[in-house]
């Protein structure tokens, strides 16, 4: 929070979500497509199956253009985006997992080189060499998933890391293996879903139906693995988080709906896969598009739930989503949040920001916008300054519960989805006044009416 600040109209979280979801849909296809294509090219060579070989060849161009261009750049894009929205958290993750990230990079390097070579050598090298290339690609792509899942899982369930500070403990966290299982299933499903478009380009009707059925079988396998993965993943989450899925806190209804959405998408994808398995001649562009959207929907739902479950932390039990460390709650209460968030009073464009608004920028703007996503004007519309002050005071008291929880005690903060308020009494009052001022006319009218 001592970094320069930028507020985004849609909210930093939404920005990350947009980039991340676009990236994960493509990157999971890059992994699953590699696995499915490696198996199918092997089968095509073994059986001398020309239509199957042509399917893989057509799919390879999609893989190249999506994976090495969009996938690679959007992957860097996630990094750029989280660095801009959550610089302190990004820095902390990099310091902890730089070697894991470097390992993933090594596999990514192999992935890119083999993808380019594989696509460039159709009709130039022997089938054996060509198979070697796609198998190496599939291996590298899958290994990059195996590595990155350790870091993603850590952000949600750090396991014993907060106590031991051991990278192994953080990496091999409780949701590591379930996450790999779920993601592998979705990868295969998405690989088959993207390839379905290439199958539709097959001119021979009978062959087209056969290829569609093969891909539907792959999709069914992926769905099965993803379903099991989801089931195990949910159970690997702490019991308190599982209860939130079932709507324990009404304000966290989005979490429950996120879960329901994911399960609905799983069912929709299963129905579409079943349709193509039983009646492959009905496979068509609309069906293929729906299947792809359902696959992407599963992943988007999972990522939404994963992000939601993690709140209010950006790194569980260590750093809140606004960059405040659990370990600095006391010092910020004493010295004031603006003693650290020196940039909060400086806005792009040169405007000097008033104190209350600066506290909002420092503590709230990583999740809340003014009028957009989780818009604070709407959320605070029922508050006058006194009510806002009471609310913030209660949130500041939550700091004790968060500290106790991080120390391994069974403590329940009153607002389990938001970071505690940190800062001096003056800062608290300034924020309360600013919140009340957002809806000043409405409050005035309400007061007058009373």
């Amino acid at each position: 929070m001592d970094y320069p600040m930028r507020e985004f109209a849609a909210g930093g979280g939404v920005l990350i979500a947009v980039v991340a979801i676009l990236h994960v849909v493509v990157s999971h296809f890059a992994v699953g497509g590699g696995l499915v294509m490696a198996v199918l090219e092997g089968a095509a060579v073994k059986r001398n199956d020309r239509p199957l070989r042509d399917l893989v060849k057509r799919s390879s161009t999609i893989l190249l253009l999506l994976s090495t261009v969009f996938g690679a750049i959007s992957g860097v894009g996630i990094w750029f985006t989280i660095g801009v929205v959550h610089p302190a958290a990004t820095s902390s993750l990099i310091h902890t997992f730089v070697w894991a990230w470097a390992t993933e990079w090594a596999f990514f390097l192999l992935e890119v080189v083999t993808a380019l070579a594989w696509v460039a050598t159709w009709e130039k090298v022997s089938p054996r060499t060509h198979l070697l290339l796609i198998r190496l690609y599939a291996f590298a792509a899958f290994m990059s998933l195996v590595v990155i899942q350790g870091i993603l899982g850590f952000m949600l369930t750090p396991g014993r890391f907060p106590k031991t500070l051991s990278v192994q403990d953080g990496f091999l966290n409780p949701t590591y293996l379930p996450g790999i299982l779920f993601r592998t299933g979705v990868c295969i499903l998405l690989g088959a879903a993207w390839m379905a478009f290439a199958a539709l380009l097959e001119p021979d009707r009978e062959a087209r139906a056969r290829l569609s059925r093969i891909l539907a079988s792959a999709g069914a396998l992926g769905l099965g693995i993803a379903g099991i993965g989801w089931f195990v993943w949910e159970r690997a989450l702490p019991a308190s988080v599982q209860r939130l899925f079932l709507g324990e806190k009404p304000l966290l209804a989005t979490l429950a709906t996120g879960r329901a959405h994911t399960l609905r998408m799983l069912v929709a994808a299963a129905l579409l896969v079943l349709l193509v398995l039983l009646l492959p001649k009905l496979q068509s562009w609309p069906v293929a598009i729906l299947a792809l959207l359902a696959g992407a929907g599963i992943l988007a739902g999972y990522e939404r739930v994963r992000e939601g479950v993690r709140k209010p932390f950006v790194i569980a039990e260590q750093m809140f989503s606004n960059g405040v460390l659990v370990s600095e709650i006391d010092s910020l209460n004493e010295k004031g949040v603006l003693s650290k968030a020196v940039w909060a009073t400086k806005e792009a464009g040169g405007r000097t920001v008033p104190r209350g608004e600066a506290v909002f920028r420092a503590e709230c703007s990583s999740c809340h916008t003014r009028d957009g996503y989780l818009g604070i004007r709407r959320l605070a519309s029922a508050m006058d300054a006194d009510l806002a002050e009471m609310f913030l005071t209660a949130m500041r008291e939550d700091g004790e519960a968060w500290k106790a929880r991080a120390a391994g005690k069974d403590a329940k903060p009153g607002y389990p989805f938001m970071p505690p308020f940190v800062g001096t009494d003056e800062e608290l009052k300034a924020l309360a006044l600013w919140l009340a001022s957002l809806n000043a006319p409405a409050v005035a009218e309400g007061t007058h009416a009373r």
Partner: protein
Amino acid sequence: MPAETLLPALDPMPIPGPPWLFHLLWVVTFAVHVVCVNLVLGSSILGTVASLDRDRVFGRGVARFFAELNTWAISLAITFGIAPLLFLQVLQGRFFYSATVILAPAWLGLLVLLMAAYYLTYAAKYRLRAGKGAALPFGLSALLFLAVTAIQAVVHLLSVQPDRWEAALASPWSALADRAFLPRFLHFVLAGVTLSGIVLAWVAVRRVPAEEARPAASARALFGVKIALLATVLQLVDGLWLTISVPREVLLGLMRGGAATMVPFTLAIGAGFGLLVFLARVRDPIADRTSVRHALELFGLAMVLMLVTRHQLRGLYLAAAGARDTPATTDQWGVFAIFLVAFVLCLVLGIVALVRSARDRPGPGRATA
């Protein structure tokens, strides 16, 4: 407000290894990244120039060479850009993040520009393969790559000068007012053109072409050499401009650094002059193949030495800004060993894949994939 008070605190998490290791990996991986970036920039510019050539056979042949080269170079530039970015964030994350937050619209916009430029390169490649012209997609991609380069240059310069952050946040365009920005930007662009020109020449004549292919190979190589020569002459002028544009205290730091800073800097300038001599000597590129090869080698030497100087300058900039905190370190040798094994494994497998792809050419009647 004094810049020191606006500087984010050091990350409380220690650096997971000795700093020298990160510096080493940063410079080495950045060198590979810069080679690829130079090729991308130079190839997109020269591809555009060639696409506009009145001699369509020659122009489209050269343009196609650069389009094919660029689809590989862009992918490798992006991939090899990841590693130095990682190590930079370990060592100097607070400077890097601050600059990217301040220039967030441009920094995030860079991704869109990069993606559009990459797809335009593919569009150019497929059009040239189909025998069509590609001046428009090539030209647009070159413009976008130039914009990406400019953004990178300005973010870098801002990141190492915290005293300029507050003004840049108030008025982002003021970041372009840095005296060193334009010469630095040109330094990159000219290096790119030089490298692409030499690579074009070297590929054309690295083996003695068959008699009927000699005129075309010679013309292509001469085009590359002349462009590289012109770019190198301009580079020497720009290099002087860049040197005097660097803040005084930074330049003095470089001069007073003794052999550690002056040897790489002086040798890099010497290599630049050597490059000029070798390029100027080439009259018949097929007969002077050795000179073309030496020019390529000298370019590589000059680039590596300049990267060392660049790295030292970065430290001097930060020292001038008063950023002298020493971060805590910790060991993660076990995880580092896993990285090392994975890296060597992937490198070996990648080389095997490329060598087999290049060598495996089934004879007539043999099946191909």
